[in-house]
């Protein structure tokens, strides 16, 4: 099931459409992601980036379209997919430890009723080591910083031992150490021929961290290898304004691109 076949796509999305009340939030999105790709999804606020991931994972209902994972419908292939949701989607005051949260990633493998045991704890510790959080295993999650929380979520996804990972804004608001840890992890996953799809908010780092990019603004503006697709023209079409930083010196121009991003007032995210 997971051997790589030439030309086989890890993820295929066709005509995916999601509507909120009467407005399309995602319209007719097609996407074919080859195995082993690190894909960034970028777009302005309200472009439907989180919605896309949630629709692929079946967390929200799509008005139309299909998703195939390694050629089969998603519900059949859940075991192959790992998910890192946004940090803010959870109450971090919940009484549980870091290790416990990571072990939740194994619940899918355990299935109904079976309890997590030593093996699950070992796998969880391994995942925690990979993200540099092994020392925090017994820590209550409310005592973690934002970056630490993010790494716990990553570990939870890693422990799922999936072939495809979806991550929703993992770099949002994290410290430098965490950012480095996440990037290292991404590269390792890519090297292991895993496919990783990441909703990303920072345009500047896209060429550094990712192989492919999907420019999304309700519709798929362009998708493909970064060198081909991540052009000023495409970005303009996506963000609707001038994206200064690509036209020259990169340093410190992030402020301008930010302004360009905010200029494009798109539809509100469905975010249910």
């Amino acid at each position, binding site marked *: 099931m997971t051997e790589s076949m030439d030309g086989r796509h890890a993820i295929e999305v066709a005509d995916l459409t999601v509507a909120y009340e009467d407005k399309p939030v995602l319209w007719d999105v097609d996407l074919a992601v080859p195995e082993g790709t690190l894909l960034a999804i970028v777009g302005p606020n309200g472009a439907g980036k989180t919605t896309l991931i949630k629709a692929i994972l079946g967390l929200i209902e799509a008005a139309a379209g299909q998703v195939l994972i390694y050629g089969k419908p998603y519900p059949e292939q859940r075991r192959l997919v790992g998910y890192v*949701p946004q940090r803010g*989607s959870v109450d971090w005051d919940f*009484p549980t430890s870091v290790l416990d949260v990571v072990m939740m990633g194994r*619940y899918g493998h355990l299935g109904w009723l079976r309890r997590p045991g030593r093996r699950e704890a070992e796998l969880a510790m391994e995942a925690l080591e990979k993200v540099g959080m092994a020392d925090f295993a017994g820590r209550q999650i409310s005592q973690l910083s934002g970056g630490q929380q993010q790494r716990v979520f990553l570990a939870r996804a890693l422990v799922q031992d999936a072939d495809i990972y979806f991550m929703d804004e993992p770099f949002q608001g994290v410290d430098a150490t965490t950012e480095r840890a996440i990037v290292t992890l991404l590269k390792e996953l890519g090297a292991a021929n895993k496919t990783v799809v990441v909703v990303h908010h920072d345009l500047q780092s896209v060429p550094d961290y990712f192989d492919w990019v999907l420019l999304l603004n309700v519709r798929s503006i362009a998708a493909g290898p970064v060198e081909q697709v991540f052009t000023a023209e495409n970005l303009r079409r996506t963000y609707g304004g001038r994206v200064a930083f690509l036209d020259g010196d990169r340093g410190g121009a992030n402020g301008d691109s930010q302004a360009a991003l905010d200029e494009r007032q798109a539809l509100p995210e469905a975010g249910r």
Partner: protein
Amino acid sequence: MTIDFTLRTVALGTAVLGIVSGALGSFAVLRRQSLLGDAMSHAALPGIVLAFLLTRSRTPIVLLIGAILAGWVAALLMGAVVRYTRIKQDSALGLVLSVFFGFGLMLLTFVQRIPDAGQAGLNRYLFGQAATLLEQDIVTMAVLGGIALALMVLFWKELKLLSFDASFGASLGFPMRALDTLLITLIVVAIGVGLQAVGVVLMSAMIVAPAAAARQWTNRLGVMVALAALFGAVSGVGGVLISSSGGGFATGPTIVLVASGLVFLSLLLAPNRGLLARWLQRQRSRRRLRVTAVLSDLYTLAQQHDDPEHAHDIAVLRTMSAGSGGVGHTLETLAERGLVRQSRPGHWTLTQAGRIEAERIARGEEE
């Protein structure tokens, strides 16, 4: 002896109530659905009355089933309203609570017109009459409560997943909606079990208070649930004992007050989280800051003075610490630690050790 026996029965009944509602209430509280207990217990009333009207039987199990079914319908309705409309959860709760209860009251007036139904007085369902619990009531409560607890333990990890990160659980393929229904059903059973003892109005407290208290003492879900069960039982038994001590206190409200008292004490006294603990920690850090500040001030004075051994008037130090008191006390603490020395009354200077320490602090700050 009869009195003792009744007391034991009642105490046992309320203990069961406390355990079941405490344990299951933990999940409601963690999911920010604390008031679900309030809504469900009010919503149970029409179920109870209808069950009686349809079966003309007042056996607890029948009424209990009516309560559970009504609570269940209410929960489903609430869920649908919140999911498909823009009505928020608190409004849905209040709506269901008041409308169902009002409907129940209306039905109750039917009942009261039936000749032999004089016993089905309002008070029993509003405030419960723990004192009238019979042994078979306890058995029913224990069996149903036991089943609910067993299911909770069985589906422990699924319920934990539901409460902590439902969308992650959905991505794993677990049917989160069904699990939500399961949890709500368990809570409704817990409420049904407790209604006879504390009644509709006070049942909500038994869902919230033990769990809220328990949360303060632990950071582990399992411990919290167990502790909540314990607190619930203590509230139940404690309330019964106090109310039967002849003060004329109604049982139900007394149980609730014991539970509330436990919450109050927990909020105050719990280690780490508790208000007292937090106050102590604040005092400790303030003291630490003051020690550092006074030491640094002495160091500054020593540096600026020709004679480093010169002892400085405490008044000077006080001026430098303007706004934060306790300079004298801090100096004494420093003296105990061998960092300063009072060479003449009211005049202080750094010792050798004190100078080293002050230098260390100064370096730390500059970095």
